[in-house]
């Protein structure tokens, strides 16, 4: 891989041994990708503070510098110290915080470890955004901006909706990027790799609800795997929440990091532009039968209609989504033995608090929780056997992670299930 003089100096230790270790990881990673060179980045979204058993053990034995070296730089070296982040770096979603202690069955030791982590990484210049949706709380990269982001739902949003450029990075590559401002210039960073590969044509139905965008995303991921679907058909104008849901679902069922919706997303004004002038592939139709099949796949884990847990806000809810839940819950009361959690970025929870939405939700017996989610923290209300969600991503992952049954439906069906304790969802 070609290295600039500056990069060679970093590799050789001119900027200290931690930067050299970071560059070593980037060289190994660049080789694995067959990348030609590195590119400069000034926007890293990674994960450093999330409690894990391995991290707890290393911190207890050798401290935070060592934990960063082993986990975030994949280095065995005993580094002198970890310097300040070289470029703006934020922490994505992580574990639950102190204000969740009496609500979420989650180890107190994890809360304490994460408190320690926040002060260590805050001192090193990591912005603790604590959300899977950094683009909702001030980290909004520009079109064409090269980034090093983790979190598949954020990566697909950044590439497709914002036109920024990032691969789906991992813990070690974002750690190395934070100390160097470099990432392999490969994949989504290059013009030639940003065109569509599959054409999905929505026919015989109009996609305009939050639920329908999620199901279409889940279908698109299944069709295109790690490639780039181009979606055409009859849509309403999607908003941030719908494309947030669509992308999270496409990244879950496949490995989609970039899609185009001609006329809506920024890099494809037309279908022809989406394919970069290459022949447009034969279309794959998404019609009523395909829609029903996706719905049934997402609901195949559910057998009991006695629902004890409702989860909203995956990816983390917008203020409008919190308001919608508040409106549906206003003056109602959750069934006894049923819990409802809405996951949100902390900054947006503050807005929901000030707007009075949180109070309405809490009066009904629901909770607005920040920083994390049941999947990240492997934590649901004690005794949960059956959960319902309006998120295709959580319906996919949570049964595997927690060994529980899942129902997938509309936000309204989920709130109704919280009030009645029964699942009555169905496809119209």
């Amino acid at each position: 891989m070609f290295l600039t003089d500056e990069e060679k100096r970093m590799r050789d230790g001119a900027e200290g041994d931690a930067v050299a270790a970071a560059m070593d990881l980037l060289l190994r990673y660049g080789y694995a990708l067959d990348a030609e060179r590195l590119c400069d980045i000034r926007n890293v979204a990674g994960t450093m503070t999330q409690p894990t058993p391995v991290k707890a053990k290393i911190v207890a034995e050798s401290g935070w510098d060592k934990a960063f070296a082993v986990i975030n730089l994949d280095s065995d070296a005993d580094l002198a110290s970890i310097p300040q982040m070289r470029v703006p770096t934020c922490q994505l979603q992580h574990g639950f915080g102190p204000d969740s202690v009496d609500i979420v069955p989650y180890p107190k030791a994890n809360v304490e470890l994460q408190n320690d982590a926040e002060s260590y990484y805050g001192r090193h210049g990591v912005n603790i955004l604590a959300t899977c949706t950094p683009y909702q709380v001030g980290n909004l990269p520009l079109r064409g901006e090269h980034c090093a982001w983790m979190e598949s739902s954020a990566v697909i949003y950044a590439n497709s909706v914002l036109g920024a450029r990032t691969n789906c990075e991992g813990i070690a590559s974002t750690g190395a990027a934070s100390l160097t401002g470099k990432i392999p210039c490969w994949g989504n960073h290059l013009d030639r790799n940003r065109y569509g590969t599959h054409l999905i044509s929505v026919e015989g139905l109009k996609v305009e609800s939050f639920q329908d965008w999620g199901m279409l995303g889940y279908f698109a991921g299944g069709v295109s795997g790690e490639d780039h679907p181009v979606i055409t058909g009859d849509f309403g104008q999607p908003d941030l929440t719908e494309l947030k849901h669509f992308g999270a679902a496409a990244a879950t069922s496949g490995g989609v990091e970039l899609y185009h919706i001609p006329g809506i997303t920024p890099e494809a004004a037309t279908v022809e532009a989406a394919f970069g002038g290459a022949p447009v592939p034969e279309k794959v139709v998404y019609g009523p039968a395909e829609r029903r099949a996706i719905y049934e796949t997402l609901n195949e884990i559910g057998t009991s209609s006695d629902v004890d847990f409702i989860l909203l806000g995956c990816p983390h809810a917008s203020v409008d989504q919190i308001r919608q839940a508040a409106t549906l819950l206003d003056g109602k009361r959750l069934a006894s033995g049923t819990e409802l959690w809405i996951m949100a970025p902390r900054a947006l929870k503050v807005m929901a608090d000030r707007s009075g939405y949180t109070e309405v939700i809490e009066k009904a017996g629901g909770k607005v929780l920040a920083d994390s989610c049941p999947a990240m923290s492997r934590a649901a209300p004690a005794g949960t056997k059956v959960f319902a969600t309006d998120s295709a991503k959580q319906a996919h992952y949570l049964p595997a992670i927690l060994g529980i049954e899942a129902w997938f439906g509309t936000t309204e069906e989920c709130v109704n299930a919280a009030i009645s304790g029964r699942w009555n969802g169905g496809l119209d």
Partner: protein
Amino acid sequence: MGDHLVLRGRNVVPGRVEGEALVSHEPISGWGGIDPMRGVIIEPRHELFGVCFSGKVLVFPSAKGSSGWSGFFQTTRLTGTAPIGMIIGRVSAKSALGAVVTRVPAITDLDADPCSVIATGDWVLLDNATVEVTKQ
């Protein structure tokens, strides 16, 4: 001694290792797809649901799902449940970084689809840019 074949490809992580192949025809998810403390695939709809990959050469078409992929496979190394090698049909940022931090020999871009020509239980020798397969 079974049939023998040699595949050539591109090296991802240098090294030489031999062992039994575990072949997945479906992409593998890291976070939410494996339990790194046990080295087991936990995705309910996956063809290898409940199967342990520790000590095997993991053969799979691609990585899917969360960006936690590499971190989960790094954890398998740190807890001793890792596969001993990876043969990857098509490499992505997730699987490339995953192989790097698992620190096991890995290869991709082979001249035949590894998930078709290698079967679970075959004996494979990974040596940088080649794979020798002894069919069982």
